């Protein structure tokens, strides 16, 4: 067991000749809330895509709790314990709220159900489905979405869709959850509430959080450590308050 939940080792990717991300070394400890910031186009979402298997890294590797996950398919990586949300919300729009969460739950060993029982609706299927639905409802209660459980996902207001996306990701029981701009488009009240929610899920779901965000107040109030990316490389790394004082970082952001 490594002391780090996520560790990347010179992680990088090239698209054709373009080095989109290179030499990224992250080391995230258990229970941390870790921020990944940087100007637009710095490669933040690309790193999320590398960590979830959407892209294959060209260089380097990464490991979750000491186990290398490079080259695994997206669903395998998810089964190992990395879940994510998306910059532009990607819910299953025409499903109900509770079913969105159930999709995330379906791969937990305790709800496993063989193909035959599932096709023939044998008691085992009914039992696991029931347990799964109950668990989904519990998760929805945490996110204050219980009353909307039978609503169609795309009819939820924006802030609730963001929450549901986090709930769905947590349903896959990750060790590490990647949040891509969770506060985007939220008003100050919603943002403050989201900060509490993220701290709460870290404690109650026992997850480590890696998040991308542009809202500096959000980042400085929430993250233990930061990595700043600029043009695909690491500009600064370390404790949040120190990093945000770094003149290089200020220059990259303000463009001096």
């Amino acid at each position, binding site marked *: 067991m490594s002391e780090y939940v996520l560790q990347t080792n010179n992680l990088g990717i090239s698209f054709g000749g373009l080095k989109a991300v290179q030499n990224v070394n992250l080391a995230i400890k258990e229970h941390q809330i870790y921020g990944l910031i940087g100007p637009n186009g710095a490669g933040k979402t690309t790193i999320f895509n590398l960590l*979830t298997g*959407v892209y294959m890294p060209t260089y380097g590797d990464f490991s979750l709790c000491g186990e290398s996950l490079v080259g695994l*398919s*997206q*669903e395998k990586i*998810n*089964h190992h314990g990395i*879940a*994510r949300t*998306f910059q*532009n919300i*990607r*819910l*299953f*729009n*025409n*499903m109900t709220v509770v*079913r969105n969460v*159930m*999709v*995330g739950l*379906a*791969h937990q060993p305790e709800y496993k*159900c063989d*193909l035959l029982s*599932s*096709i023939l*609706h044998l008691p085992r*299927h009914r039992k*696991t*489905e029931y347990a799964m639905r109950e668990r989904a409802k519990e998760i929805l209660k945490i996110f204050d979405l219980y009353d909307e459980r039978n609503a169609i996902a795309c009819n939820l207001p924006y802030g609730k869709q963001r929450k549901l996306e986090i709930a*769905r*990701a947590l*349903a*896959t029981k990750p060790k590490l959850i990647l949040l891509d701009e969770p506060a985007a488009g939220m008003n100050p009240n919603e943002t403050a509430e989201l900060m509490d929610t993220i701290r709460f899920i870290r404690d109650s779901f026992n997850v480590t959080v890696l998040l991308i965000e542009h809202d500096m107040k959000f980042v400085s109030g929430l993250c233990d450590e930061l990595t700043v990316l600029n043009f695909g490389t690491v500009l600064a790394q370390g404790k949040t308050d120190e990093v945000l004082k770094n003149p290089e970082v200020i220059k990259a952001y303000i463009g001096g």
Partner: protein
Amino acid sequence: MKIIEIIISGLNIGVIYAMIALGYTMVYGIAKLLNFAHGDIIMVGGYAICVFCAMSGSRTFFFVSIVAAVIICTVLGIVVERVAYRPLRGATPIAVLITAIGISYLLQSLAQIIFGSAQRYVTVPDLGKIMIGSLGIKWSTIITLAASVIVMVSLSLFVKYSRIGRAMIAVSEDRGASQLMGINVNIIITITFAIGSALAALAGLFYLLQSPYITNTFGAMPGIKAFTAAVIGGIGSIPGAMIGSLVLGLIESICDTIVPIAPYKDAIEFSILIIILLVKPTGLLGKVRREKV
């Protein structure tokens, strides 16, 4: 009485189209590809029944041949997906479309090599008629209707209430997000092809019950018609495929009874497709696809 006859015959054709259209629409909805080889799976199912029936004339053997045809088609569907479509996942849709057409011709040519190009008679048992008043309904029609309704209802329930069905809907909504939520997309697509092909085998059987002759292009026209029905209903939608098929079946049966226009029934059906698409480009039950910005 005439009207009832027209409706029954329309429903008969309609449910057969529905069996095929469901395969098109599910594969399109979930794998986002137009499987133009789907019609030829019907032909393979037909030949399977033909071969097994020829081995023995008995009725029990006829049922064995149905099971065999379903199994053969299911396996064929899975193999085609595995060999021809899976390597192209992520390729441009045109490449996949051309491959599908290639598979279609491959299956037709193989059938021609094995069974020759002459029409064959399939010794399906004659099940006779039942008389309701002055109205004679063939048993084969009743069986077709009953079996199709059972299949369609169970398929709808399966997709709506089972775990695999839920995963299918998730994949059809957002393949990337489903994968990142732990769904094995390859397995879901394989199951979809398996179901679609099994339904195609049943469609082949129902066709043979209507007219027991088969050639290597047996599946081509029903395939195109069912595809039309799926588009009319809104491709990607399961109830849409059923409704589109019934609409098309009824139109076909009405055209058949009006002697002067009967020869033009295909032209009429495809014209209706064009008109429906002009008025409602997504088909009757199709959803408007919102572009991501």
